């Protein structure tokens, strides 16, 4: 049986193309998997190389990670991960999808690098985060604001550096100085009520600022990361590499298992572990079960935002069945805890299989009825068609993922482009739409729901016999690789480097919504504020509730802070505008 490294390498032509174009700037290449290569390049040429792969070879920016490799080779390292899929000519010659990681070294005494964001807009958030967490300054970056760290975080304390802090150091949680300038608006009848962002009525904190002209949104800005938990640092210090799957499960309350699989596969790839086939099928089944409950949640929220609360309740009632399905298969409704490095922990027995197949049948019937009712509701099309357009060019520039991207005409799904677990052995269909609007994204999720049901049924029936866990493998310090999964919201991708102490040296985990937030402001433009909650919900973000929204009327030069519930109510009822 061929081991993973004996399979032929995929993507050699892209490496050859950049060697051709950039000559000696391309220094070394090393392959972590047949379709994953890390190419070390000269730091100053790196932006041009990334741009060339992105726009001239059909590349999409999946991840950018920085790593403090000063203990290893004396430098910081940057890793720009691109999923390179070929330009038209290369695709015609033969489709090859390869993860190319462009690596460059940053000297420790001059921690700066030329920013890629002016050339490839998708890199903007990643570079801001690198600057916050490592103190490596991107020169020429268009947005200098902090992304992750709060305003009163000490200036030269960089959390992810290896020598950053004595753990006994506890900076003051707040400062006396008011660092945030509120717009003070004078005028008759203008009331400003400061709330939050951490307020007891909100689920997840985030601050949105909509710039409006009358009712139309001219631009939007938002600030997130109020509940940044420092998981990447946690994984390096508080637990061993084989306990991290349990942490990865808790990254997200909806796509936790996707993160778990992404992490586990990244370490398995780094160590060259062949996961048994039966384990692959079990992972596939659980990933699809997760997709079921996530898409039902989004469909329910879509109902809620257009005012159809009965539909919302019915979708959530039916969703209970998918939660029960998860409980049957894993012992818990969420945070499945089913992976270890090398496979899964529980098998699927005949009794469970019979019950789950029965539930799939019931789900198909009930959700069919509900989706038909939803699509027949008079105002659904009016409220969602042509709303929140993500133009294909904006999508190409910002690399969003998942249904958000597929709604704009790109048939990109990691299960097809970079197959993992059993997706290359189970036939299924990718759904995409050309309409670029909220309706398109919602319809994609509905169609994917039924496709997931079919996949669960097929996998349950076709699962091969055999072991479910590899026990006994060689641990290699400093081995690294990528793990990736098409979570319900899109591509989750993790980059892990193992340390020499049974712990991770570096873990960069990028959730799918991270790539979907930057293009959101383009999707909000030219829509009315009553559509804003629906548009935000259509990217199905990992936070869909914001605590307050500031609405700035640029023409009248007036700012009003309205509670989110008000905005939501206005979105549903469409009368008694909170701006009046």
């Amino acid at each position: 049986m061929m081991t993973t490294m004996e399979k032929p390498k995929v993507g050699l032509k892209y490496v050859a193309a950049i060697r051709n174009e950039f000559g000696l700037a391309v220094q070394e290449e090393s392959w972590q998997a047949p379709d994953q290569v890390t190419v070390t390049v000269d730091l100053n040429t790196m932006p041009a190389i990334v741009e060339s792969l992105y726009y001239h070879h059909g590349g999409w920016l999946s991840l950018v990670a920085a790593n403090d490799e000063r203990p290893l080779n004396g430098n910081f390292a940057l890793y720009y991960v691109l999923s390179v899929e070929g330009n038209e000519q290369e695709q015609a010659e033969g489709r090859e999808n390869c993860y190319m990681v462009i690596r460059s070294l940053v000297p420790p005494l001059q921690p700066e690098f030329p920013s890629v964001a002016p050339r490839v807009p998708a890199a903007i958030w990643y570079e801001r985060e690198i600057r916050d967490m490592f103190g490596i300054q991107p020169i020429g970056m268009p947005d200098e604001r902090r992304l992750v760290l709060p305003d009163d975080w000490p200036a030269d304390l960089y959390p992810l550096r290896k020598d950053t802090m004595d753990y006994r150091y506890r900076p003051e949680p707040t400062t006396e100085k008011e660092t945030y300038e509120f717009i003070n608006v004078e005028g008759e009848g203008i009331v400003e009520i400061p709330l939050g962002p951490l307020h007891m009525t909100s689920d997840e904190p985030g601050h949105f600022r909509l710039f409006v002209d009358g009712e139309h949104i001219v631009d939007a800005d938002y600030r997130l990361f109020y509940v940044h938990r420092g998981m990447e640092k946690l994984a390096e210090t508080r637990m061993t590499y084989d306990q991290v799957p349990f942490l990865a499960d808790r990254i997200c309350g909806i796509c936790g298992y996707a993160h778990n699989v992404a992490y586990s596969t990244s370490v398995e790839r780094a160590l060259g572990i062949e996961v048994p086939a039966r384990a692959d099928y079990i992972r596939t089944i659980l990933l699809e079960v997760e997709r079921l409950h996530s898409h039902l949640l989004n469909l329910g929220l879509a109902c809620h935002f257009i005012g159809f609360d009965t539909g919302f309740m019915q979708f959530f009632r039916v969703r209970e069945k998918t939660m029960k399905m998860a409980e049957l298969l894993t012992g818990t409704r969420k945070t499945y805890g089913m992976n270890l490095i090398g496979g899964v922990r529980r098998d699927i027995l005949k009794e469970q299989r019979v019950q789950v197949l029965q539930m799939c049948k019931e789900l198909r019937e009930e959700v069919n009825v509900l989706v038909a009712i939803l699509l027949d509701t008079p105002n659904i099309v009016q409220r969602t068609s042509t709303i929140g357009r993500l133009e294909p060019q904006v999508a190409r520039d910002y690399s969003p993922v998942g249904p958000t991207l597929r709604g704009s005409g790109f048939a990109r799904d990691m299960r097809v482009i970079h197959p993992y677990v059993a997706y290359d052995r189970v036939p299924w269909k990718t759904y995409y739409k050309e309409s670029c609007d909220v309706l398109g994204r919602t319809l994609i999720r509905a169609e994917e729901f039924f496709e997931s049901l079919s996949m669960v049924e097929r996998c349950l029936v076709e699962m091969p016999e055999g072991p479910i866990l590899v026990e006994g493998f060689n641990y290699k310090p400093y081995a690294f690789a990528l793990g990736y999964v098409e979570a319900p919201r899109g591509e989750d991708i993790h980059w892990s480097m193992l340390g020499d102490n049974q712990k991770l040296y570096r873990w960069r985990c990028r959730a799918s919504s991270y790539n979907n937030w930057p293009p959101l402001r383009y999707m909000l433009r030219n829509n009315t504020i009553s559509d804003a909650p629906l548009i935000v919900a259509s990217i199905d973000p990992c936070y869909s509730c914001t605590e307050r929204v500031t609405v700035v009327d640029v023409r009248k030069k007036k700012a009003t802070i309205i509670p989110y519930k008000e905005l939501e109510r206005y979105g549903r009822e469409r009368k008694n505008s909170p701006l009046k």
Partner: protein
Amino acid sequence: MPMLKLIKEVLRVGNATVPYPFVKVEVSPGFRGKPEYDPTQCIACAACVIACPPNALNMETDLESGTRTWSIFYGRCVYCARCEEVCPTGAIKLGSDFELASFSREDLTIRADFRLASCTRCGAYFASAKSLDHVLALLDQAGLPPESAEDRKALVRMCPECRRKVDLPRVKPIVQEAFDGRL
């Protein structure tokens, strides 16, 4: 038309609310509830303590009193069942109890004390008495010839330091032969 379909569906479904906590909630077989501990089976080997991802399990050794205390704090437990997986004697298993709310943190901690065994040669404490007994029982079951079995068991009753010293005469010629007299 859609309204009619909707009303039909709503009427068909009826009331979906479960009257919990006035009725018991049935959980699936294999449900992950809180870990149930059986101190009579436990040998205080600390495998579960090493495996626990959120550090809910703890082991503290008190050399003065010659005891080792195992404890679990349910406030940290994430119901991952790694403790159950690594336990060599089945002393801890996840049950189906999920109702763990309590008015005091102390209610969420369970402790068990175990005696430590002392080395037959130097007298230092080096392992829990029950884990020692467990290893001796395993050696009995291993079916070694009686002469070497007794030697092995005598070694096991000593601390690692003494074990190394006492076993040296047996090990030395083996190592020398392996290195072909170069040592």
